[in-house]
């Protein structure tokens, strides 16, 4: 029997939990199942586990344990940061600055605040998705209460100049949040060096479990709870703690802290192999994002004249799992807002594949993709009226 190779290249969507993460979580479902709010031994045991996880999560980003507030997802962390910081500090002003390429879990809460009377400045990126710190500086007014610029973009992988922006916001006394959900576990993230006041991270993005995430909030910064009515998380976020998942987050943070340098080196070299290999084999390919300031595991390319979902589905039949920026693969039927903001032609955007590598990706996996992908693109091009038109035009010219 032939066993088909499976190549998962969608680590920006989610990662499998590390086996040691699952092992660490397991005792907390049945044996050590206590509620951390309780005073008895089972409660204490659970409380200690949560505090241990908090310390490990803090250590990964160079924060203090009491600056870590656990949530259930990166999306919740971003909602908490945007709404919580704006609401708790609105006496300072009612102006918010974001970038156009933020995740919707930042942009939608910002839109909600806008409806409630906040003013919003949305900074546009350059062609490579980069936000110019000078533009942020220029946008800051006396009324500015919060700046939120993501640490790296989850689609095109561009790393933002957070440290530079942090210097500006600190100088001007403005709160600064960064969505580091796509970064933590893949590149070094140090809240002290970055000078941020709040930072979002999500466990399932770096080999932790789904359902566990955190918001770092610098000591002394006020934030309004969004999930209210519980003493948990120092009164900032109610709800019985998801003890096993938080233990898993702690473990994933511990592993990432150790593995990070090797992880980055190995993955970026495979990333380069994939990118170069595709470029050699497939004409009319555009690489999106910044050539060097990007996440080590991120490949975002547009294949002209073909549509993303159909590529994705053919790759799926070969056991290769990727994402696409295509309108057809989004539930909104709009192609990626990130690609459109960096000026990618809409037709090209619809032919975009997002391939994100992981710690388990091998050289053979990349070879396999380089074998399977080119004929798929070629076959779809031969089926494409856009390609037909281009070929005819090329012939006549």
């Amino acid at each position, binding site marked *: 029997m032939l066993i088909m190779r499976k190549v998962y290249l969608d680590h920006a969507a989610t990662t499998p939990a590390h086996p040691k993460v699952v092992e660490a979580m397991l005792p907390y479902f049945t044996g050590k199942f206590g509620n951390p709010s309780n005073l008895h031994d089972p409660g204490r045991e659970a409380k200690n586990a949560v505090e241990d996880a908090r310390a490990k999560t803090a250590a990964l980003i160079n924060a203090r344990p009491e600056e870590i507030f656990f949530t259930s997802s990166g999306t919740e962390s971003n909602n908490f940061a945007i709404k919580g910081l704006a609401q708790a500090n609105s006496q300072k002003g009612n102006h918010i600055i974001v970038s156009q390429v933020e995740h*919707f879990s930042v942009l*939608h809460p910002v839109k909600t605040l806008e409806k409630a009377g906040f003013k919003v400045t949305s900074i546009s990126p350059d062609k490579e998705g980069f936000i110019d710190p000078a533009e942020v500086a220029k946008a800051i007014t006396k009324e500015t209460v919060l700046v939120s610029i993501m640490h790296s973009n989850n689609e095109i992988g561009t790393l933002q100049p957070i440290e530079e922006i942090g210097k500006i916001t600190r100088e001007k006394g403005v709160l600064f949040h960064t969505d580091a959900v796509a970064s933590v576990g893949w590149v070094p993230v140090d809240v002290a060096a970055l000078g941020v006041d709040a930072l979002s991270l999500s466990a399932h993005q770096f080999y932790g479990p789904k359902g566990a995430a955190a918001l770092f909030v610098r000591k002394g910064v006020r934030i309004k709870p969004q999930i209210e009515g519980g003493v948990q998380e120092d009164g900032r976020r109610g709800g019985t703690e998801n003890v096993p998942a938080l233990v898993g987050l702690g473990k994933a943070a511990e592993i990432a802290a150790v593995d990070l340098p090797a992880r980055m080196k190995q993955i970026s070299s495979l990333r380069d192999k994939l990118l170069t290999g595709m470029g050699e084999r497939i004409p009319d390919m555009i690489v999106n994002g910044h050539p060097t300031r990007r996440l080590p595991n991120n490949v975002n390319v547009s294949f002209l*004249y*073909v*549509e*993303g*979902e*159909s590529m994705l*589905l*053919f790759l799926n*039949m070969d056991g290769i799992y990727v994402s696409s920026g*295509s*309108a*057809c*693969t*989004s*539930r*909104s*039927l*709009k*192609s990626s807002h990130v690609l459109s903001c960096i000026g990618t032609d*809409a*037709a090209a955007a*619809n032919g975009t594949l997002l391939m994100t590598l992981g710690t388990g990706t091998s050289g053979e996996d990349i070879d396999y993709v380089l074998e399977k992908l080119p004929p798929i693109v070629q076959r779809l091009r*031969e*089926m*494409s*009226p*856009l*390609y*037909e038109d281009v070929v005819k035009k090329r012939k006549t010219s």
Partner: protein
Amino acid sequence: MEQYSSKVMEHFAQPHNVGEIENADGVGTVGNPVCGDVMRLYIKVDNNTITDAKFKTFGCGAAIATSSMVTDLVKGKTIDEALQISNAAVAEALGGLPKVKMHCSVLAEEALKSALDDYYKKKGIPSPVKMPAESGHEHEME
């Protein structure tokens, strides 16, 4: 999003009638690459009967499958019969489409009508073709 039916996947993986018809009697191109779907449908007409149909499509799984299905359906039909083919008929023949992909069947109907319209034009006959009303995407919330 709902999953594609096995019939859709069949027609997507091994689409029928892919290609061009040289000197086709009618050609219709509909859709927009910005929205992610462009369909081009070629027909050969002999004695008021569609003897051959081929397509080229830039689009998602559903777009390719509906193109494959609509070309299957028209072959052997008279022009009048072909004009009766609705998007619902195409979708039904594929065992249904996910709600957000129903616009692909509309596009297939449009492509067919546009090819028939072109056929009338080429013949110099006033075209009786009415293009379907709904042709945009159903935009769901993000």
